[in-house]
């Protein structure tokens, strides 16, 4: 049984929330975490769709510091108001 994309998105969101301020996560890290948990029940395409859902809904945003990451929306230290 394939895991629904909505469920993947929710679980990814929890992982991102837990790592906020500790570790920056890439799309690949999230995909690998889901594959580690559910094995064949998660396809790369579904993991991609889940990330797309997080970004397009505004629950998460892309960040960049050296490499790209997926983060909770927040204001950053460098920002000038």
């Amino acid at each position, binding site marked *: 049984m394939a895991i629904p994309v909505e469920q993947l998105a929710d679980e990814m969101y929890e992982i991102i929330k837990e790592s906020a301020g500790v570790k920056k996560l890439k*799309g690949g890290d999230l995909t690998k975490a889901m594959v580690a948990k559910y094995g064949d029940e998660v396809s790369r395409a579904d993991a991609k769709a889940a990330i*797309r859902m997080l970004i397009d809904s505004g629950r998460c*945003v*892309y960040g*960049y510091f*050296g*490499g*790209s990451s997926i983060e909770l929306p927040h204001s950053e230290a460098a*920002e*000038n108001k």
Partner: protein
Amino acid sequence: MADDLKTPLLDELEKGPWPSFVKDIKSLAGKKEMAKDLLRQLEKSYEDKRGYWKHGGLVGVMGYGGGVIGRYSALPEEFPGVSHFHTLRINQTSGWFYTADALREILNIWEEHGSGLLNVHGSTGDLVLLGTRTEELEPTFRALTEKGWDLGGSGSDLRTPSCCVGPGRCEYACYDTLSLAYNLTHAYQDELHRPMFNYKYKIKMSGCPNDCTAAIARSDMGIIGIWKDDIQVKPDAVAEYVDSGLDVQGLVVENCPTGCIELDGNEIKIDNSNCVKCMHCINVMPKALSPGKERGAAITLGAKAPIVEGALFGSVIIPFMKLEEPFEEVHDLIERIWEFWDEHGTNRERIGEFIERVSLATFLEGIGEKPLPQMIKAPRDNPYVFYEEYYAEEGEGEK
């Protein structure tokens, strides 16, 4: 011109017969606070011998993870005009062909929403719009997309594919660089706008080994036009060059890196089995010599500038591939490479570094390609590829 703008150090850069970015920015300084403060902050940097920019990692437009490079001034009180100074990369057209109207369109949008300064083109290939504020990003993006423009890549994504003018203007083109760049840009929109790789991945396309996009040195994946058969020779035109006084012996024959050309009176003989396709003879005698008829491209992997690790040059991974629409063979190769790199690469590891770490042999096995002698980068660079049969001999089981 702004009267209160004093930039004696920058003014030095206006001297001499060369174009000057200082002159350019000054031409906008009377109209745009952003241009004026850009010059003032740069003058201070020259005085103090340090930069005053801060990186902004979160700015962008909704849904996109690339295309905007965030910058803030470290001295916003002193230089409020550049308190925010974000850059947008705009996906260039294949081969950089524009109409004057198209350029005017972009300039009008940029004068309204940003500094009005642009760099055409950046070393990435994109049209680079320099300097705007965070709250202007979405309106700029909307204005651009309404006219059919889109952002280019940045961050850990597929960077905007870039190509030479190719068959648009150049007889040397061994494949249609313009249409391949267009095709790859459209095929990989997700990879371009939604960073999902370990690190950046640049594809540059040159129509022949002259490599006008410098793909061999500047792209993770270079697609460089090449031919397989013999250089085409027009004997009459060779004779004409000789008669006109061109030193064919000195300039062509003796400069061939493999010494595979011979001149006999008015006649040229090429030992094509020893030609390394360097383009030298063709470049010197374009009317007489041209690439062969069996054309395609060689594909290189791994070039990069020094950031995390040192600089690397690209090396050949596919010696020859025919390139024709709909380019399925290229898509297939690209996807095999991405999948293996995705699975086994580490954070911020470029494809060239990845291959060095896991070894060429492992990489080839991972993407399902066979080792070939053309993959050897340099003399004594030994890939030590082991064939399955050798393992079998060691008793690892029957095949």
